[in-house]
């Protein structure tokens, strides 16, 4: 996996998983549809991606489906990195 995958996964764990939570999250773990990340809290992930990779993600593409796994997030980011 790319360094982007590792960076996004690290952010997701740090931002959304409580220290005392024994949830294991990997590149394919469902984040939104499983309830680990709710749609309201998704905004911080979007801001992180935009700052980190210097891109702009339109709301129409920053959907719960696109943000559901680290893998799908990276597909979206890579598309906007051109």
């Amino acid at each position: 996996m790319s360094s982007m995958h590792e960076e996004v996964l690290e952010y997701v764990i740090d931002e959304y998983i409580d220290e005392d939570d024994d949830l294991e999250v990997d590149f394919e773990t469902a984040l939104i549809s499983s309830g680990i990340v709710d749609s309201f809290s998704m905004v911080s992930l979007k801001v992180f991606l935009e700052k980190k990779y210097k891109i702009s993600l339109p709301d129409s593409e920053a959907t719960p489906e696109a943000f559901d796994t680290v893998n799908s997030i990276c597909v979206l980011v890579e598309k906007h990195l051109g």
Partner: protein
Amino acid sequence: MAYSDKNRAMFAGEIEEIKDKGLYKEKRFICSPQDANILVEYPEGAEKKEVINFCANNYLGLSSHPDVVEAAHKGLDERGYGMSSVRFICGTQDIHRELQDKVSKFLGMEETLLFPSCMDANAGVFEAILDQDDVIIADRLIHASLVDGIRLCSAHYDTFKHMNMKHLRKKLELHQDKRTRLIVCDGVFSMDGDLMPLDEVCDLAEEFDAMVLVDESHASGFIGKTGRGTHEHFGVMDRVDLITTTFGKGLGGASGGCVSGRAELIELCRQKARPYLFSNSMAPSIVAGSIKVIDLVSANTDRRDKLEWNTKYFREQITAAGLCVGGQDTPIVPVMLYNAKLANDMARDMYAEGIYVIGFFFPVVPAGAARIRVQLSAAHDKDHIDKAVAAFAKVGEKYGIIGLDKKGIIEKYGM
């Protein structure tokens, strides 16, 4: 016909999907005044049954209090049925002003503005005071009406892990470039019954130049030594900038809500908050009833104290009975079941035992955190609580969860 067969089939299909997911909300009819004992028609068409109510927000037992009912009658007689106006045109009576002043005094705030509901207060307050130069930093488990209000506002927003002060600090550091920061939280969280540590929140707010807004809907009237709320409980009555709360729960249970806080912020709500500007005034009878409620809770702490005793007794007894409960010392007691079907099935069996409680599961609570939420009331007597505990013990035994902790229940039923 605009509502074609195709449209009908489409919407009917959506309803079926809701049912298939197990998220359908069934109709339940209460055929008596709101109280500890209520007469219920459930399912629809079934014979009415008297049950003990453990799922109302009637924390202080004031929903059908004779003094409140009498005051509402008087308000109806003296000020009429409706206002037929929004507040700023011709919808503000002297009693609206009186209620606002009494609420300000009760909560220890500078000014108060009434809204048709707390949902409306939360929908209007953010857009009235903040814009795109500002940021709202919200706890992740705030009430849905706050989420909606934040989304209606042009300010940036961010979230922090539930009650995690370390994470809140990180977010405050991150957003120092914004003009204003507003920390948003519930005082008592409605699903878990836990208390936001407002003393720590206010310390961080001072350190990072942020304002604090607290939704006190599940706290006003009974949290704190004299029932002022979570800000009283944590000794920060002068350090919270905005409170939103409701008259639809502990404070009489009818309807209406308010924003209370710093004078300039309240004035901006009066000038700019859309639900205030475009929705009708609270009806005179409800305003008059709410004034009586504030008088009652200001006069003594009898009801608040009884609720505290009931809460402590229920928590002790239900824990001793071997059920797994969450939350803190508030009248919201989640009996944790983790599995949605288990929560639903147990709630149905509890009803058969004469105890009216509801199962909650995703998306109302996080996935894997299904529970039956029990809400205590000052209207409950010890006998009501003993019956509820006995029913939980019997139903819990049926499902084999007595004495099991989180791990044990999840091993048995899954999440």
